[in-house]
């Protein structure tokens, strides 16, 4: 572990895990009654399958550090957070935590729908270990931060999910903790509140708290964490500077994803056709500059979309169009053959067109491709594969100067 090279706020260790294992014993079949249990116990048939959620993990987090945890679902990230939050105890090894922990594992855990917001603030606050007097003092600040206004005396069941999430976040973060545990909660509420909660986390960080963060957003891990650990099947695969860990992780992910996306693309090639169509899309392929199938590209790479179709009757003026959407629904572009003045006379039989982008300007993300065949005169949709094809832009290991946003404008900077 190349820890020396990284500048850490202090050397004081605040969270230390040594050889920590968490082993769940899951009974192989559900034994619901006593009688059954005793019979099986006598027969020696109570079988347990053990499952290592964490396997001899060692890790130390320093005071004032923002430490990220990444990995697939089920890799053990949440288990690790729960160990630090005292929710579960390790079955092996040792966990030492110094200081008051504010768990943002599940904001608003323990809220009761029949109680009012006010009553829930006190209930939730005492669950976090505060006294009644402390809660009285915190109460006005919590109400203000959660922006609930007059709703504070209405039962929680009348709240929207965003409102209760805001309330939970406000209670959990009102007091400066020594350690803040954040598990993907920054996606609560509307955009304005997300911004506000992010600001609060930054201010908790600025006041010297140690933050343990689990996120699937690599850009967030990279931008606010100093160090990170990549967990895989209960073990640490990589523990280093956040950027190094994220790079390694994404490298692996894009390899896997390329394989999966290609496999999925082939599965989807021939969707079940029920109704008669005068012309059908038979295959859509994404190719790189060597004409090989590829689903993961990097910004600036050449991308060719090959569309093959089969016509069952002559069609006068065919228009082939595609649409590119980002995963969150932003429509990026919709080129078609008519715009480009390409005339496609169709005779019965197979044919195809290709759309080549010499240097794709899109930045990192997951994108979806739709393909449509349209009769230009009647403006009739002949065949349409809506959001059918997926590709990813991933710039790990490639020299791409820009990092943020949707696309590169390929501009250049110069001194005036």
């Amino acid at each position, binding site marked *: 572990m190349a820890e020396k090279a990284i500048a850490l706020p202090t050397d004081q260790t*605040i969270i230390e895990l040594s050889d920590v294992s968490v082993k*769940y*014993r899951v009974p192989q079949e559900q*034994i*619901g*009654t*006593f009688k059954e*249990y005793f019979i099986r116990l006598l027969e020696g048939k109570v079988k347990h399958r053990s499952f290592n959620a964490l396997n001899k993990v060692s890790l130390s987090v320093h*005071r004032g550090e923002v430490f990220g945890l990444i990995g697939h679902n089920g890799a053990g990230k949440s288990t690790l957070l*729960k*160990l630090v*939050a*005292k*929710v*579960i*105890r*390790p079955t092996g*090894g*040792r*966990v*030492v*935590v*110094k*200081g*008051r922990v504010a*768990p943002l*594992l*599940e904001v608003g*855990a*323990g809220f*009761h729908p*029949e*109680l009012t917001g006010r*009553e829930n603030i*006190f*209930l939730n606050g*005492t*669950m*976090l*270990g*505060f*006294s*009644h007097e*402390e*809660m009285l003092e915190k109460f006005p600040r919590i109400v203000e931060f959660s922006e609930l206004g007059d709703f504070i005396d209405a*039962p929680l069941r009348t709240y929207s999910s965003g409102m209760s999430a805001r309330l939970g976040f406000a209670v959990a973060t009102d*007091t400066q903790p*020594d350690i803040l545990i954040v598990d993907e909660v920054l996606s609560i509420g509307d955009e304005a509140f997300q911004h506000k909660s992010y600001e609060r986390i930054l201010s908790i960080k600025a006041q010297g708290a140690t933050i343990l963060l689990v996120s699937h957003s690599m850009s967030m891990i990279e931008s606010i964490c100093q160090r990170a650990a990549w967990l895989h099947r209960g073990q640490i695969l990589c523990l280093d500077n956040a950027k190094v860990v994220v790079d390694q992780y994404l490298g692996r992910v894009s390899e896997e994803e390329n394989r999966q996306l290609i496999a999925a693309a082939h599965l989807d090639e021939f969707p079940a056709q029920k109704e008669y169509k005068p012309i059908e899309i038979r295959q859509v392929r994404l190719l790189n500059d060597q004409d090989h199938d590829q689903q993961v590209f990097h910004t600036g790479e050449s991308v060719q979309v090959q569309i093959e179709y089969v016509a069952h009757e002559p069609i006068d003026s065919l228009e082939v169009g595609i649409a590119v959407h980002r995963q969150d629904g932003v429509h990026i572009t919709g080129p078609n053959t008519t715009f480009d003045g390409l005339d496609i006379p169709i005779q019965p039989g197979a044919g195809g067109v290709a759309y080549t982008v010499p240097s794709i300007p899109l930045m990192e993300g997951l994108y979806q491709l739709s393909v449509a065949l349209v009769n230009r005169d009647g403006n009739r949709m002949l065949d349409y594969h809506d959001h059918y094809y997926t590709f990813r832009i991933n710039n790990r290991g490639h020299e791409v100067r820009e990092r943020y946003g949707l696309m590169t404008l390929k501009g250049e900077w110069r001194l005036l």
Partner: protein
Amino acid sequence: MKSQTGLSVVYDSTRRGSVVLEELREIFNYRYLILQLVRRDILTRYKRSFLGVAWTMLNPLGMMLVWTIAFSQFFKAGDLPSYPAYVLNGLLAWTFFSQTTTASMVNLVWGGGLLNRIYIPRTSFAVAAMGTGLVNIGLSMFPLIGVMLVTGLKVHWSILFAPISVLILAGFALGLGLLISTLAVYFPDIAEMYQIMLMAWMFLTPVMYPVTILPEAYRFYLTMLNPMYHMVTLFRIPIYFGRLPTPSELLIPLGISLFFLTLGWLVFTKKSDEFSYRI
């Protein structure tokens, strides 16, 4: 947890001394949570009803009426000065016991997802269930005294001893509640079975009939071996019978109570680390 400054709180998973004592200390640290949980239980139970918390008192009164009308003839109630007061007195002890044990189990098994999400002392639910029961039985003293006065039974000074009876009963209920909660985590069916057992247990205990109607051949076993007989009697003595308990009437239930409380606390705390893997 008081407001700690700096890094004074240190949690070390390997250094914990006695689990049994640690849990006691934690329950004390989280006493405000217990108060809030009790408050929640009482408020939410009656939140949507018109009469609200008054039901705590109306409920046993209604039950008493039903029992009195249905059974006073069968049980030769003539032997007892005020049958309604006798029934209500016993019913309060029984209701406290059955509600506390059931609630501590149900809260843990169905509300226990909470233990997977946030750290709170694991005995919180059972202790809060007992607290809720104490509030309920405290409020129910008013209708009980009312019934005694109306039916012409003298309220004796010995009634001031009743809180001690209640505490001894509470210790027993908490201990048994912890024991069956532990079992119910492993065998959820216990929750259903327990309701049936409670029903049978109540009919075997002199709650709404005088102990004299038990056949003499079995009376000794049915009373002496039944912990709830001692508990109900200890609660009736200072109120209905209007006297102080004899040493044996006090020490037997006290011993049972301490035994079950210790056993329940030991078993529950020893097993509680496994709960979050199970619930």
